[in-house]
């Protein structure tokens, strides 16, 4: 049986070869998962390691503006920086954090912020920013996790009432008729409703309907407590329900539009509740539609609106945190933010730019006025799911009982708030 030995050794060799190559390849694949927290956050000096910037862009205008701002900074600082546009930002960010090789600077939306801050993916750089106190307090609050301001608000948007001038005039209304209270809003919406045109439209989601809750003095979270089924919120939903059932208001989806702006541009709605991003969409898609922007009418508790914001996140795993911080400082400066406003219609996140902005865009001033009283949409980890559940319920608000609807969401929200504390 001497021959057995070479055969066995060959087989052994072959098996080893397979195993080794398998291991080698697995190791290559595995190296994507580098160990977290390499301590790069401790560096204080900017290195010349190149930076990548990942943005979720609304279109070429935004991409070009950001690319230009980043490359001009790059020229000054000598640090290479490239801008990439994400097709699915949350997914690409998550993938980057998991692989330990994320983009250095990126957009973070308020609703995904808490999750990334909680798992340590974000570098809490913003506490030391020189201009930190210039950001609107509500925006700082949106990006504060465990009493630390993690990232600098990039810009923000608020909701306002957008009115179609032509339909307004056709209904015999004048500037004096712009509604300032809920009663007037109901009246005007009824006047403007004609045939296929709804007087008022908004998307079936808390991100729009919540503005009524804010004006009623409600909100999903009040002083750290879940208050989804508060009497104020019930009052707001009952009011919205009445508008919907009277036929003077419609959900944009019921009009066959993807969002309020589309319904407005197509003339399916005479008034919509939308954010300042509508200005960009109108000039790009419906340049012929003339419109007026007004602050949302006062509810029982005065003015109220919602705001939405993003921040410039820096990855804790970045090789060049200090360089990234300098880039963000540049991008959040008054000049850069005004340039971004000009390019794609956002509102600067710093208070010192507000006056200049209102001067440049007098027609859109109601949006920035909203910044003084706007509420944040709750963004505790898990709150996104609760709001998604609420939105699912809101689609059938017409036939639902507002109290019951909100009671259904309250326990879920309580669970999220309890987890966050």
């Amino acid at each position, binding site marked *: 049986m001497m021959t057995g030995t070479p055969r066995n050794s060959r*087989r052994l*060799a072959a098996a080893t070869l397979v195993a080794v190559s398998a291991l080698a390849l697995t190791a290559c694949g595995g190296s994507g998962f580098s160990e977290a927290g390499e301590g790069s956050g401790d560096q204080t000096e900017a290195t010349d390691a190149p930076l990548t910037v990942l943005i979720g862009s609304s279109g070429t205008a935004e991409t070009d503006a950001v690319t230009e701002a980043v490359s001009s900074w790059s020229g000054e600082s000598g640090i290479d920086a490239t801008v990439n546009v994400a097709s699915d930002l949350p997914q690409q960010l*998550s993938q980057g954090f998991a692989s330990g090789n994320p983009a250095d600077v990126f957009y973070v939306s308020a609703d995904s912020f808490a999750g990334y801050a909680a798992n340590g993916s974000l570098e809490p750089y913003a506490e030391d920013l020189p201009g930190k106190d210039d950001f609107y307090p509500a925006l700082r609050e949106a990006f504060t996790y465990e009493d630390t301001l993690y990232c600098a608000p990039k810009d923000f948007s608020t909701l306002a009432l957008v009115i179609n001038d032509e339909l307004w005039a056709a209904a015999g209304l004048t500037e004096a008729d712009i509604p300032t209270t809920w009663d007037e809003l109901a009246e005007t919406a009824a006047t403007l409703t004609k045939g296929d045109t709804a007087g008022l439209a908004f998307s079936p989601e808390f991100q729009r309907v919540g503005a009524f809750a804010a004006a009623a003095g409600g909100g999903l979270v009040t002083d750290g407590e879940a208050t989804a089924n508060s009497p104020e919120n019930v009052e707001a939903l009952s009011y919205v329900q009445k508008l919907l059932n009277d036929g003077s208001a419609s959900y944009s989806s019921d009009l066959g539009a993807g969002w309020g702006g589309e319904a407005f541009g197509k003339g399916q709605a005479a008034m919509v509740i939308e954010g300042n991003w509508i200005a960009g969409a109108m000039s790009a898609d419906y340049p012929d539609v003339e419109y007026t922007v007004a602050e949302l009418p006062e509810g029982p508790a005065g003015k109220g609106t919602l705001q939405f914001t993003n921040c410039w996140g820096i990855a804790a795993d970045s090789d060049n945190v200090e360089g990234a911080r300098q880039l963000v400082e540049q991008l959040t400066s008054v000049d850069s933010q005004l340039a971004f406003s000009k390019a794609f219609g956002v509102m600067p996140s710093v208070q010192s730019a507000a006056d200049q902005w209102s001067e440049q865009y007098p027609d859109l001033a109601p949006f920035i006025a909203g910044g003084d009283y706007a509420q944040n949409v709750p963004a505790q980890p*898990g709150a996104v799911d609760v709001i998604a559940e609420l939105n699912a319920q809101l689609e059938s608000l017409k036939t639902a009982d507002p109290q019951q609807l909100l009671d259904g969401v309250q326990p879920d929200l309580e669970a999220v708030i309890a987890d966050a504390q």
Partner: protein
Amino acid sequence: MARSIPSPPGGGTARRRTTRGRQGLTGWLFISPVVVILGLFLVVPVLMAAWVSVSDWTGRGSPVGGSVSFVGGQNYTAILDGDGLASRDFGTSIRNNLYYVLLVVPLQTGLSMFLAVLVNRQVLRGRGFFRTAFYFPSVTSSVAITVLWLFLFSSTGVVNRVLSFISVSGPNWFQDPRGVIHVILAAVGIRTAPEALTAPGFLGVSGWEWLAGPSVAMSAFILMAIFTTSGTFMLLFIAALQNISGEVQEAAMVDGANGWQRFWQVTLPMLRPTLFTVLTLGLIGSWQVFDQIYTGTQGGPAKTTLTPAYLSFSTAFNNQRWGEGAAIAFILFAIIVTLTLLQRLALRERDVPRRRRMVPVTASSTGARTASSSALPVKEPKP
């Protein structure tokens, strides 16, 4: 194989063993790329996902690193305990997908078999054209078809326009969260849930919601799935039909069976293996529906097009709950395996002796076959 090769003259046992050893080595070498690729892209990721589903990994750095700890079945209980939002979402997604499967699988199987029988008929002119036409949706990317569908089924889209010709005002398809069964019940006057069905039931979803049926939005996806996949399965059925020899049909004709009887008594039983394949592939594919949802509705309206596959993705990537996302994927895997096994059990051939299965032509009839086939009135392809 090695055994059947005659050993070369003069070769002894030793020589033969060496040859076999060399062949073994060669064999290993040849399969090593596949082993490596399967290991790298299948076994390792699956094992890692299994680990993530029982860990508290938060999505940063390696899931096998030091700071990640074992949490047992916690992620699975969060999904299955029927208490809380995560579980209700999972229940809703199972409800949606269940109706999707119940409608898509039988309809696409039936339709594809029907199409296969049609285009397999010798008398049909332009068979090639129809075959290509029916198969076409299958080769188009599902993303493109989804976008097409969004346009066709928009509130002012082609479908509703056509419906308006027959005085039906179509629903706003992809925005309509009403369950089809609820719509039917509403038509006979039942608009609210009976008291018994309002309490949270299995997986936290009330009985009334379980009975909602697919939403109008989901129905549009169901139509799309049937439209796109029946072409693929039609090909499988055509291949199987062409394997059934003409004289079996002929024998049935001699026995006096009409066309209808021949289909049910002869053709269909002989298609059983293919039927099993089609049903299994359909079942697996329709439990994994993801790309239509991702490009089309993201689970809306009102979560009625949420499917477990999409929920797994969004739980992990958008909400940073990686453990729960992985757990959903494994539960989905278990569902698919269980259902496939059940289906295998149900389609088992009971009455036919095992050895005679799939042998339509026995050795003794081969002689008759040559004789009779020349007499068949089938057009022979011209050389």
